[in-house]
């Protein structure tokens, strides 16, 4: 029910009413983007942005840097662990 799906804004259809075409999982939909438009992000600048779409409304812009950090957190942990185990007594653990 609270499902939101990532999609990319591929056209602005009606800037006055904040309506854009978003490609969501391969399907193109008319989506209301009022909630992700503000002074910093005027309608026309939203083209190409990735957003989370829920029941026809874009409710959040997806932040690529944050996404990369989340994915990188794992590598970091692994590195830290390898470092710890190479100096620790359990260095022989596979």
């Amino acid at each position, binding site marked *: 029910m609270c499902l939101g799906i990532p999609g990319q804004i591929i056209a602005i259809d009606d800037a006055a009413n904040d309506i854009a075409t978003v490609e969501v999982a391969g399907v193109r939909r008319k989506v209301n983007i009022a909630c992700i438009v*503000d002074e910093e992000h005027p309608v026309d600048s939203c083209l190409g942005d990735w957003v989370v779409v829920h029941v026809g*409304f874009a409710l959040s812009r997806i*932040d690529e840097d944050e996404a990369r950090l989340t994915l990188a957190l794992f590598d970091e942990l692994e590195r830290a662990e390898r470092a710890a185990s190479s100096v620790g007594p359990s260095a022989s653990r596979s």
Partner: protein
Amino acid sequence: MRYVDEFREPKNVEQWLANIGRLAEQLPLARERPLQIMEVCGGHTHTIFRYGLAELLPEVVEFVHGPGCPVCVLPMGRVDDCVALAEHPRVTLTTFGDAMRVPGSRKSLLQAKADGADIRVVYSPMDALALARRHPDREVVFFALGFETTMPSTALTVLQADKEQVRNFSLFCNHITIAPTMKALLDDGALRLDGFVGPGHVSMVTGTRPYRFIAEQYRKPFVVTGFEPLDLLQALWMVLKQLADGRCTVENQYRRVVGEAGNKTALAAIERVFEVRAFFEWRGLGSIDYSGVQVRDAYARYDAERKFSLPSLEVADPQACQCGDVLRGSLKPWECRVFGTACRPETPLGALMVSSEGACAAYYQFRGIRCQPLVATDTQPEPVR
């Protein structure tokens, strides 16, 4: 980046499972009893079952399925009201597909439609408004339900209807809020929860602040998270890490989507159109104070509850149902006395069997079948009891 496959990468999932296992081993508490972490949101319940995550976790860590499926907690009386609305000769009732099969005391919307009521499934409340524009002779009512994730869309639709002065459109408002319900669960005392993974899409609207009381007053770790397997496992690890460090705070694993303050425009729209109800009835949980919203007086003409007279009766849940205990997390779905017998997805007795986000349906559908194995394991799923 397409923000889906990257977060399903089997190698990463396997590694996070290993991290969780190692961390759980270090927790003294986990030696006494399994750690119980509640996933509040039905979307998370769905992910857990769809990917078989519960079976992949070390034995000492358990997910407890929470009440966060708006369809599952809809009380019978409200379904009956909705059916009554749909049977009104001038009304075209519009709804999300999820709500069609929720049992009422007389019938579900699906049965009402079969009996001739004008009921249409829509993808968005805006589609309902479009229908109202096209059919000025009909009263188009939208069955509004959902948590804060869905509220902005119905609020913005009401504002749009008001802007265009569309008079034949209204909401049957059943929106609910998650925080008061979590408080009710925590006060219940019957549950022994060690922490929470919090709803990602509610939080993209509300931000992470509404959960602070859970960390501050109830001293439970709370980690807001996304809906891919990697998100859930990372969040689970973050909860265990807090337990290991003796901390409890609200953390945000879903930073790519959720900001601390939520979405300003969406919150403003909600605030304009809706106000808190004194109480709202939840299926299986009973009445919870301040847990629902209603349409403000300023938009009364878009409120179906004021536009039409409704029976509004309170209807008790069927006796055999143990949905309340499952919703509270104190009973596993398969422990319900009618699970898989009288109550099945084709003939649901309780709403938890209706939506694939309901714990019972998710369990029934995915347990033992494991549609999309991410990690090969040689452990067999337990037989359904």
